[in-house]
């Protein structure tokens, strides 16, 4: 049985359900069988002491929306790629910019930034004073450096 921490109605009239991350997969499986067949987006929120992950679900047939929230203290959240294929890139984006590690993701690499980029730029503790530059090597692959170097 899924334990719901909090249930409320958001500003836009959508139902918001908050669950612990241990029950995330169970509640998503349940909702998918109820007709919520489209995971439209995944958002990450940095609350400084914890990270919050928000999932927006859409019921295509009845045109209903639902928001699922969960939070994590150790940057780790179970991956939903086994349920929704669209979670694949959404989770990679959240890993790239927020540093949330999705456990069980088949290909958890950065989506936008090169692999050598240091830090996750949308986190509150990201140091903006250290400017990073992106250069291209001979094969056309990107790499990030702190040194402006050739071409900059």
């Amino acid at each position: 049985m899924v334990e719901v921490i909090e249930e409320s109605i958001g500003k836009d009239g959508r139902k918001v359900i908050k669950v612990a991350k241990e029950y995330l997969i169970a509640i998503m499986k349940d909702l998918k069988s109820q007709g919520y067949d489209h995971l439209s987006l995944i958002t990450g929120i940095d609350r400084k002491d914890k990270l919050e992950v928000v999932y927006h679900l859409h019921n295509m047939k009845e045109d209903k929306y639902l928001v699922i929230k969960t939070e994590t203290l150790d940057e780790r959240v179970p991956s939903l790629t086994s349920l929704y294929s669209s979670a694949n890139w959404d989770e990679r984006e959240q890993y790239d910019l927020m540093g949330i590690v999705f456990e069980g993701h088949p290909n958890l690499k950065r989506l936008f930034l090169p692999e050598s980029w240091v830090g996750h730029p949308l986190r509150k503790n990201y140091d903006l004073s250290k400017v990073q530059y992106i250069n291209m090597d001979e094969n056309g692959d990107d790499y990030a450096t702190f040194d402006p170097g050739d071409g900059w």
Partner: protein
Amino acid sequence: MKTGETGILTTTLEKALEWGRSNSLWPLTFGLACCAIEMMAIQASDLDISRFGSEIFRNSPRQSDLMIVSGTVTKKMAPRVRRLYDEMPYPKYVIAQGVCVIQGGPYNQGYSVVLGVDKVIPVDVYVPGCPPTPEALTYGLILLQKKIRHETDR
């Protein structure tokens, strides 16, 4: 330039070349963000930069003389902009369109945007605005033509 009485035009070779170059600036088909929409407008019938010799937007950097950097240059895009610029033959000119290209604009405090495309490639004319009107960009093109012809503006 001096016009002779017999109808002969005398000029220096440099002047003739500059005149030719300034009136055949073919831009590169190259847009990065919302400024590109304004850049497309200068080619359309209302302003039509063909009147100033910028006949067509060439699809290959090897056939174009002018790069209009239209829109936010992200750090990821910067090496590509550099490569396109390197592939253009000399003489080549660059117009920086919009505040994003000049100094980062609204993304100045961000992590992902190049603070001025002049950190990557040399720029001849800066056209400020967010986005600049097509009229402003046309004026920038005319300024560049005057710069090529070594005419003083105003």
